[in-house]
């Protein structure tokens, strides 16, 4: 029984390490913040911001024709406002054209916040270089946890009962001389 518990402690330890690595990966590559959170926390470096492209704010300028390989999307410059329920964030986008860039569309933009301008924080804008897909990691996490946790519990329960049965059967065998004595 001790070996069983030790083995499962090891499995839980490995699972916790994997969960921690997954959380780190989520923070680094998947986590998005709203324009309000961005303007409050003012993070340094590349972040992912989710918001709604405000109606009437989008202006797209195609970049000058350059020699690009075939099947490569054209490069564009775009200015628009990304909003959540409290804040509006001016965004300047410089990158490949994307079908998802349209007004009243919820988008994830990847880039960084510029430093304060001559007018102070009011001159700040978000420099984006990439659009990303909307995160729906809640569904993925739910699916994996709802399948893997019961699987672990089910397997542990079975292994524990098997170990107990082996012990009981061994003990039952030990008492066989008594049975013979009764006979």
């Amino acid at each position, binding site marked *: 029984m001790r070996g069983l518990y030790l083995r499962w402690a090891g*499995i839980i330890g*490995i699972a916790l390490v*994997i969960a921690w690595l*997954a959380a780190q*990966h989520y923070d680094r590559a*998947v986590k998005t913040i709203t324009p309000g959170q961005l303007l409050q926390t003012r993070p340094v470096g590349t972040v992912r911001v989710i918001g709604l492209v405000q109606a009437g704010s989008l202006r797209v300028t195609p970049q000058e024709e350059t020699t690009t390989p075939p099947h490569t999307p054209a490069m564009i410059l775009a200015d628009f406002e990304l909003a959540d329920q409290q804040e509006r964030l001016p965004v300047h986008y410089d990158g490949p054209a994307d079908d998802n860039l349209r007004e009243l569309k919820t988008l994830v933009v990847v880039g960084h916040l510029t430093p304060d301008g001559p007018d102070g924080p009011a001159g700040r804008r978000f420099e984006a270089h990439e659009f990303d*897909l*909307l*995160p*729906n*990691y809640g*569904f*993925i996490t*739910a*699916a*994996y946890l*709802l*399948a*893997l946790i*019961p*699987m672990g519990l*089910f*397997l542990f329960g*079975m*292994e524990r*009962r*098997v170990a107990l*049965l*082996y012990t*009981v*059967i061994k003990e*039952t*065998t030990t*008492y066989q001389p008594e*049975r013979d004595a*009764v*006979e």
Partner: protein
Amino acid sequence: MSRYILWLRKYQGWFGLAGGLCMTIGLYLGLVKSPPDYYQGEVVRIMYLHVPLAQTSLFAYATLFISSIWYLWKRDPLIDNAAHAAAGLGVFFTSAALVTGSIWAKPTWNTWWTWDPRLVSFTVLLLILIGYLMLRMFIDEPERQARFAAILAIVGGVDLPIVKFSVEWWRTLHQPLSVSPRGISYSSDMLTPLLIMAIGVSLLFAYMLMVRTQLLYLRQLLEAKKGRLLSRVQL
């Protein structure tokens, strides 16, 4: 103790270890390395668990089906234990596949459930498995229990091809067969983690089947030992 049970006890750990390793690598490749889908986005990552679980459910029923035929032919209680174990595991894997599929359906089809032929036939498979276990609970005499359960499992086997080919035979919302004579409809970035996960879950199923077969065998052995002891005491 049966030498087959001793064999299972000796080698089961390798299956568990290999299954766990494959699943760890598959989860890493599926959740971190593989790209998101153009249409579905990140939620496609549920596929790396849902598809292996669904395939293993069919595999579990196939094991039950073959074991039941084998039992009716040989009448070996150990084969009946394996069939009984496969049914219990089948209930677990089928339920898990339905739950993960339902969670995947919500963001892609905008519904948790729809009366789609694949979903309905898969739920029927779960009901057959539950029925199989209930039948075993209601019959006390072991030989009769095993015989009736085997017959039910063989009759219920008709659902297996219906589940598999429902997406080909009817117009369904569920995606068609991804691996068929027409070719493979996955990119290699997605196929590799999916295959590794499928192997991992299958190995884990094999491991669980070995453990559960032992569990059922040991229960019977203990009952037999107790019964023998009791009968000798009464003598």
